[in-house]
């Protein structure tokens, strides 16, 4: 049976360790820009969903026990291009280039991508599990990066977050051709 690509969305988790507490003057400019950055995301073509805390505006108060001290940014997009255009080809880039002012360098990967069935809202546990897989195994079809993206060709992605020994789906690796 042919796979309808519209049946799957791309989830992303990005974690960042802030240099200062969120109410510190050192973070003020970043915190003040958040509403603008998030509004840009919400209005971006292909945006599906993003995680927010009780404030309803952003996720800056959320932490995960396995990622102590890190802010988390979890969202779902229609496809790789829509996410990429927001991250690297919108006003978001102006803040991305200043990441060092607000966040410490991360040891190991800090951004992970994986496919979810359309309509599935990933939990933070599921997302952190994907990041830990990426850190443990490198890019695989169930946890990858922009650099080593996987698209699906022939088999649906495996969704369950913690299935060991899952069959490797017939993914097709799409390395960006721009590298060399």
């Amino acid at each position, binding site marked *: 049976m042919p796979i309808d690509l519209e049946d799957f969305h791309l989830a992303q988790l990005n974690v960042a360790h802030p240099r200062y507490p969120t109410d510190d003057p050192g973070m003020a400019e970043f915190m003040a820009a958040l509403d603008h950055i998030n509004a840009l995301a919400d209005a971006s073509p292909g945006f599906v969903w993003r995680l927010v805390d009780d404030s309803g505006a952003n996720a800056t108060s959320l932490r995960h026990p396995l990622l102590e001290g890190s802010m988390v940014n979890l969202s779902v997009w229609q496809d790789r291009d829509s996410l990429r*255009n927001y991250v690297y*080809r*919108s006003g978001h880039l102006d803040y*991305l*280039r200043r*990441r060092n002012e607000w966040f410490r*360098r991360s040891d190991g990967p800090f951004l992970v991508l994986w496919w979810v069935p359309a309509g599935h809202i990933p939990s933070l546990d599921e997302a952190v599990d994907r990041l830990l897989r990426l850190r443990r195994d490198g890019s695989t079809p169930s946890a990858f990066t922009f650099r080593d993206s996987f698209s699906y060709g022939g088999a649906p992605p495996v969704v369950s977050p913690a299935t060991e020994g899952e069959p490797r789906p017939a993914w097709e690796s799409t390395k*960006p051709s*721009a*590298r060399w």
Partner: protein
Amino acid sequence: MDELDDVEAVGLLNEPLRRRLYEYVTSQGRDVSRQEAADAVGAQRTLVAFHLDKLVAAGLLTTTTRRLTGRAGPGAGRPAKLYRRSDAERQVSLPPRDYRMLATLLADVADEARLDDALQAAARAEGRAEAAGAHAERLDEVVQLLASRGYAPRVEADDARAVEGAIVRMGNCPFHALSESHPGLVCGMNLALLEGLFEGNRHWAPRIEPSPTGCCTVLRSIDNAD
């Protein structure tokens, strides 16, 4: 026609009319018709079509077909063949050099080590040094400076000669492949380079203003630079 290699493709530009056509089409930043190209270089349309199609075969230009009149159905005429710059990169170095691979490896390491600040400082200093003595303030001076650095600048202004309210968009990113593989690092560097180049300039300020295609920066005249 078989795929041309880089040397053959670049060699095609040795023909003067073909080179003028290539420069005209690539500087427009949009689809160009045969008639427009013919008018721009002052040559016959059939000859121009021949050369344009040679450039397409070499992968230097690419085509789309579209009806220019907006009409459809009988009487609307044949759709026009339109030309624009191809996304493919051609590179010739004799003797062979591979700076791309070197740059990619260095960018990998710099990204991993988060050397953004050091890279931006170096780029700003480089821009400053380049700018020493050259004061690009008039629109034509600015366009020439950016063109010489490979940005393929395109002016958007109500009055073609007025600085006020003008925006200069970059039709080309000189660091394209690296800006795709390392956007945060490379676009930040690119902005810093331009900031150095236009430091202390009374009329112009570079800004990050990315769009899905093209370069991540624009140059705005100070009075409308937010």
